[in-house]
């Protein structure tokens, strides 16, 4: 019995040591990002570079707001991420309801097709999509970008909600239908209120995916007026010279929305994640 308590203690302490290592490994990059944004250029470059800022100041942020289109990028990202989220919620709920509750030919095929299209990687699609987007005059437009984002948020959201709707007992809805409720109002009044956790995951997923997306935003947008924050950030590099101060400031600010949303939704997200919710 003594050896058991000893093994326990060894395990406990190994765990604690590993935890410290993981915390350092995870947090140091964030520290460096924040600290860089608080330094003056002289402290950032060359051999004078410091690990701790001597005089923390908001200079980089002032430059960011005054001299770069950063605010424009933020506005674009917000508009696109919010529209993607709203459209994914509405269309995802409708599609999932049809697949979960209505009988029609092709139901299984459509469900299969949705998952399949969620798994087809953007790296394969962006080249032909470029031609499609040009033909449809969607290059350099916010709605065009929102539309391509829907091509990966919708399949996933529909599928996630489908699983959830299926678990809602049929009897609840049947009672409403017998009382003369229409299909759509049964969805809104009965199924949706029970499905709030799934809706939270869907909202989280669509918002962060749209906010964090880079490849499509980079390929389908050239104009500053439509550019999102992820692609805008890379423009802080001019001719191989990096403006690290403002760039890290921008990186800090652009990290806040998805992280904040993650903190709010994390309770539900972990559940959704086991279903393959977020790319990693």
């Amino acid at each position, binding site marked *: 019995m003594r050896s058991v308590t000893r093994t326990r203690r060894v395990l406990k302490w190994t765990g604690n040591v590993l*935890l410290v290592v993981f915390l350092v490994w*995870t947090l140091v990059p964030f520290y460096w990002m924040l600290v860089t944004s608080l330094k003056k250029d002289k402290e950032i470059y060359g051999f004078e570079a410091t690990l701790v800022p001597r005089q923390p100041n908001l200079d980089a942020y002032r430059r960011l707001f005054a001299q770069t289109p950063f605010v424009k990028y933020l506005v674009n990202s917000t508009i696109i991420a919010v529209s993607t989220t709203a459209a994914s919620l509405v269309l995802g709920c409708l599609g999932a309801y049809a697949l979960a509750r209505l009988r*029609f030919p092709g139901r299984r095929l*459509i469900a299969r097709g949705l998952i*399949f299209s969620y798994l087809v990687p953007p790296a394969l699609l962006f080249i032909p999509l470029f031609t499609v987007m040009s033909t449809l005059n969607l290059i350099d437009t916010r709605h065009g970008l929102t*539309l391509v984002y829907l091509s990966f948020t919708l399949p996933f959201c529909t599928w996630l909600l489908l699983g959830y709707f299926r678990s809602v007992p049929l009897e609840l809805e049947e009672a409403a239908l017998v009382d003369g409720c229409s299909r759509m109002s049964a969805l809104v009044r009965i199924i949706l209120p029970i499905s709030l956790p799934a809706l939270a995951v869907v909202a989280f997923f669509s918002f962060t995916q749209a906010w964090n997306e*880079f490849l499509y935003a980079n390929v389908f947008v050239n104009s500053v007026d439509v550019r999102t924050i992820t692609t805008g950030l890379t423009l802080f590099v001019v001719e191989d010279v990096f403006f690290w101060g403002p760039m890290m400031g921008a990186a800090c600010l652009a990290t806040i929305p998805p992280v904040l949303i993650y903190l709010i939704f994390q309770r539900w997200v972990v559940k959704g994640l086991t*279903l*393959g919710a977020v790319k990693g």
Partner: protein
Amino acid sequence: MLPAGPRRSRALRDEARLAYAILAPSLLVVLFLVAYPFVSAIYLSLQDKMVGSPGRFVGLENYGELFRDEVFLRTAWNSVVYTVVAVGIKFVVGLTMALVLDQERRWNNLFRTLLFVPWAVPVVIVSLNWRWIYDDLSGFLNNFLITFHITRDIVSWLSNPHLAMGCVIAVVVWAGTPFYAMSFLAGLQAIPKELYEAAEVDGASVLQQFSFITVPRLKTIFVTTVMLSTIWTATNLQFVLILTKGGPASRTEIFPHLAYQIALGARRLGMGAAISLVFFPVLAILIVLLTRRLLRQGEE
């Protein structure tokens, strides 16, 4: 419940009509922005199309050229190494992280939240930040190592041909481990604690408990997580694009990034499509198997 006869078939027809109507927007998006581009990628790869000019049908010429090209062959090898090593490390570190977080401890919720944050950060930002950490003269890594006298000279992390791939993979691991840890932790927490207690009474060692209780119970999650992550790791070009652009001397070139460079840098759309398609058969097997798994999970 439903009335019989002609009224019933009418009800069914209405139901189908409603279903198609409310599914239509999603289907249109998927057809135009996934299915059509997917098919046209295949067609495009058989042409010598450039940006802004119509292509000529060249059959398998693009593929032939690829397999004679040294850069492509190196890229193919790199892609395999990159994906296998990154997925392997993420798996091991992620499982360790999950096991550590599953132990009883004060503040565990806080630690969990902190360790999972990288997962919510945009990959572009992660990559830019790490590029800055690796910076030769002013980056955190060199500064730290020199300040604490661990190394005497500056190390060129990303431009050293022997270190570059490892450095890129480290960033992929930093960003991707939380996904594994989260999935595994959810699985660990679903295992009833009584199983371990019973095993302990029977005299099973910690290692035996791990291999006879933990591993079998997590098997499904292991497989799903690794399959999903393999697809995403293999096809994510952002890390390489921002950290090294495939350099030095193609040492970190992987196929999605090469396709991107050829299609948009060299403006050869046909060849770019061919590069991304060469690897598709491997991914397709994963995608088909995963679709089946996920459908089954969804129906349970």
